Each structure stands twice: as C-alpha cells, then as structure tokens.
C-alpha cells in the first residue's frame, strides 16, 4: 500500500482500519483519494485499492465499523474552508468489496470561510451516526457534534443538532465513541490543555465538560476506545513526557469524572502518539507507540483487565524505518487475538509505504544471541543470526540448535 501523503493514516484519533467479514480492511489517503484495500490474512492484499472519494490527506476522514451490523461508516471534512461535511455508510463483503448503502450524504452544508475539520465518526447502539468535528468560523474555533435522525445510510440532521460542545482556541482534535443504549461520549483535545469529554444520554442532551488531570502535549497525540459504558483514554502529556491512561465511566453525565491517571510509559517524547486497541478475546487493552526509547522501533504494553495493571516493561515488537512517531493506527478491535497495526515508512521511489502488521497474543518472541562471537542458530531448521528475534505460536515446541565448534 502506497501514498504520497505523509498523514495518509493519521491520526490515532481517527481510525482507518478494522477487521470484519473474515478480512482486514485498511483505509488511507493515497494523496488524491480515500482508498481502501483488504486482506484475508493481513499479509497478502489485493494490491488494487478501491477509490472511495477525493481526499488529499488522511486527516480529513475517520471511519467507524460496527461488527454486529457489519456496517462501515466514514465522515469526511477538510480545513479547506469551503467544503461540506460528508457521511457514507456501506456493507463490507467477504470478497473484499464494500457495497455502499446510499450515495454519499452531506451531513453539513458548506459555507465560505467555515472549516469542518478532523471528523471522528461513531454510531450509537441503535445505528444512528454521530460526527464530532472541529469547526472554525470567522477565526473562532469550536468543537461540535452532529447527528442523523436516520439510521439507514441516509443523513437527515437531527433537529437537536448540531451542538457546540465547547469553544476552544486553537482548534481541537475530536474523538467520538459509542457507549450502551444510545449513549455517547465526545472527547476532544487541543495542544497545551487537558483533554476534555462530554457524555450524552442519547436523549436529553450533553453532560458537563470533564477534564483530565494532565495536559495534552499535541492535539493529535491521544486515542480512546469504549467498552460498555467506559471510555479508555491514552495520551501524551506535557513534559516530563509520558503516556497517561485514564478512564471515564458513564453514571451521571453531570458529575462523572476521569479516573486517576496511570503512567503507562514514562520518558517518552512530544512526538509520540499512542493508540489503544482491544483484544476481543480477553478484553485486555493494548497501547502501541512508535520510536521511543529506540528510534524506528514499534512498542506495545498490555493492560490486563482482570488485574487493572499495565505491563511493567514495553515489548519491543518490531523495527522499521518509520517516517514519524505519530503516524500509527490500529484496528478497532482484534480478530480473535490478532490486532492490525499500521505505520508509515519512506518509499525509495518517492512517497510512503503503508505497513500493516498483525500483533497476535498467540505469538511468542524468541530472542537469540551468542557470546562472545556471532554464531547463527537453527530454530526448527531455519537459521537465524545472533541478535535476531523470531515469533512462534504460543505453546509450540521448538528444536533449537547451535554448532558445537566454530572456526572463524
């Protein structure tokens, strides 16, 4: 998968991939259009991306996938100043094609000088789509939500919407999540301020603004998912930089507050944009990030729900020639225990390659080295050099051999 846009899969506030109907699906901006491709195993892709609509950047759209109904929705809006906000819903098929339920719908009309940016879309438990977006008019920034009163792929703006959640300067990145029974939560963050959230009961309106204890470093350096009525949030806080974790559970929108923060990872950097995914089998959360402590390394930590604890040490999962530490995305949830993780690398011919890798809880890493000389080992008949790692299925029995004598 290739692109000319350095933000093709940006940012963690907007999802770009999911697993559904036996396939992994990846959306991105190729620099001209939104396109998608799919793969049955996450390794072999069709190589023929399908064009969805024009979009010169990945920042202009977010997707939402509901596995229960097998419906994929996207919202698109730009900082171009003259564009409307658009919505479309479709049905992914196991053959790799998305059948769109309707023509693309205009969720908000265009108006000269108005910006409707960085949309985050989520669908409530009854199938009604909400779009949270950054709105700028006459130099004033707002964070807004709009909702459709229809749930059939058409868009008719609900009579109570759009709603201005807050006036924020400078602009915010939004992140919309569904809760249960039609309830929703809208999260928004701007650089140099706490992340805020407001909950919606799905009927009467929006609750009080709730702020995190720590201050967000950059407006796109946060990610969240929801399970039941709880939103789980990770973000990069201001110096001393760290990845913070906190939760917001819906009880009373007027008084709910973020939980005490936990430092998932300390000594990070301003450029790190962590992203959360959930293992659907176990309910455990995974926080992925790039480039810290080692440049060009991909890391993760696991949050074990049963004990409410994060791993002490990060897993140094992959190495790659990363373009930036905030160019990362993941699937909403896992396929079984497998989570799709996406990042960008430079393409020698110009532009960027989109890398898609699958984390599987079923895989274990064997790291081999020899001392004081570099001697290869064979693992199940395959030679690996000293200093390299291989992954094998959890519980597998391996035969590992090193040479008895070495002549150098």
């Amino acid at each position: 998968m290739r692109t000319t846009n350095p933000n093709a899969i940006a940012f963690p506030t907007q999802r770009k991939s999911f697993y559904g109907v036996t396939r992994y699906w990846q959306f991105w901006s190729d620099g001209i259009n939104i396109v998608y491709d799919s793969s049955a195993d996450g390794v072999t892709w069709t190589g023929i991306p399908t064009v969805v609509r024009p979009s010169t950047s990945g920042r202009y759209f977010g997707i939402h996938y509901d596995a229960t109904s097998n419906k994929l929705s996207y919202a698109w809006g730009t900082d171009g100043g003259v564009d409307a906000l658009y919505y479309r819903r479709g049905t992914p098929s196991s053959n790799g094609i998305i059948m769109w339920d309707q023509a693309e719908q205009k969720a908000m009309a265009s108006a000269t000088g108005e910006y409707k940016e960085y949309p985050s879309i989520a669908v409530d438990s009854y199938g009604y789509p909400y779009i949270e977006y950054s709105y700028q008019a006459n130099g004033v920034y707002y964070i807004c939500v709009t909702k459709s009163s229809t749930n059939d792929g058409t868009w008719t703006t609900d009579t109570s919407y759009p709603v201005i959640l807050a006036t924020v300067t400078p602009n915010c990145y939004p992140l919309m999540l569904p809760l249960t029974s039609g309830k929703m939560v809208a999260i928004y963050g701007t650089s140099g301020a706490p992340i805020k959230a407001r909950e919606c009961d799905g009927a009467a309106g929006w609750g009080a603004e709730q702020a995190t204890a720590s201050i967000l470093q950059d407006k796109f350096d946060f990610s969240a998912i929801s399970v039941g009525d709880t939103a789980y949030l990770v973000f990069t806080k201001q110096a001393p930089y760290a990845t913070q974790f906190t939760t917001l559970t819906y009880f009373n929108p007027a008084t709910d507050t973020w939980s005490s923060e936990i430092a998932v990872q300390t000594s990070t950097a301003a450029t790190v944009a962590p992203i959360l995914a959930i293992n659907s089998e176990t309910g455990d959360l995974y926080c992925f990030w790039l480039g810290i402590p080692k440049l060009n390394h991909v890391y993760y930590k696991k949050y074990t729900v049963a004990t409410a604890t994060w791993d002490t040490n990060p897993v140094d999962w992959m190495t790659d020639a990363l373009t930036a530490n905030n160019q990362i995305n993941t699937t909403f949830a896992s396929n079984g225990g497998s989570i799709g993780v996406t990042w960008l690398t430079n393409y020698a011919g110009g532009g960027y390659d989109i890398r898609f890798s699958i984390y599987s809880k079923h895989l274990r890493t064997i790291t081999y080295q020899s001392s004081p000389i570099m001697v290869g080992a064979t693992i199940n008949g395959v030679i690996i050099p000293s200093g390299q790692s291989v992954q094998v299925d959890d519980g597998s029995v391996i035969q590992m051999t090193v040479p008895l004598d070495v002549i150098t």
Partner: protein
Amino acid sequence: MTHYVFVGWQDGTTTPSRTITVTSDVNLTALYNKVMRGVVINTSPIALQVTVGGVPVQSGQPFQIDDGATITISVPQEAIFIT
C-alpha cells in the same frame, strides 16, 4: 583462524541442541569459549631462549596459543657457553 567451542547456554543448559516449549517470550544466549593449545618448546642438551612470533620464550616454559594458529619459532643457530 580461531577456534571456538560451545560451552553452554546462559540458563545452564549444556547441550548445543535443545527442545523448548514456548509459553512466554524468551531470551537465549549461547556461550562460546576460544579453544587454546598448550605449547612447550625444549632445546637440548641445554635450555635456550627461543622466539615465537618474535616474542622471547624460555625453553621448557609452557605457553598457550589459539587452536589452529600458525606460529613461527626461531632458535639460535649457535650457542656459546663460557664456563
């Protein structure tokens, strides 16, 4: 040429081939030692100083070199003892 021989794994296993049931991430390190050979050079009927690779060595004194190494030994062509 240098000869190394496997002496064990860092976790105490001593065989170069092993079977592992993988239930967690593992780090494995194979440890090697350089193989050395003992050399003693004697001169007879008297003990002389010789050179090995240019380094003086006393006759009858053992020293070690890398297994497989090529060495150059020089002994004096003549020795005069004044009694």
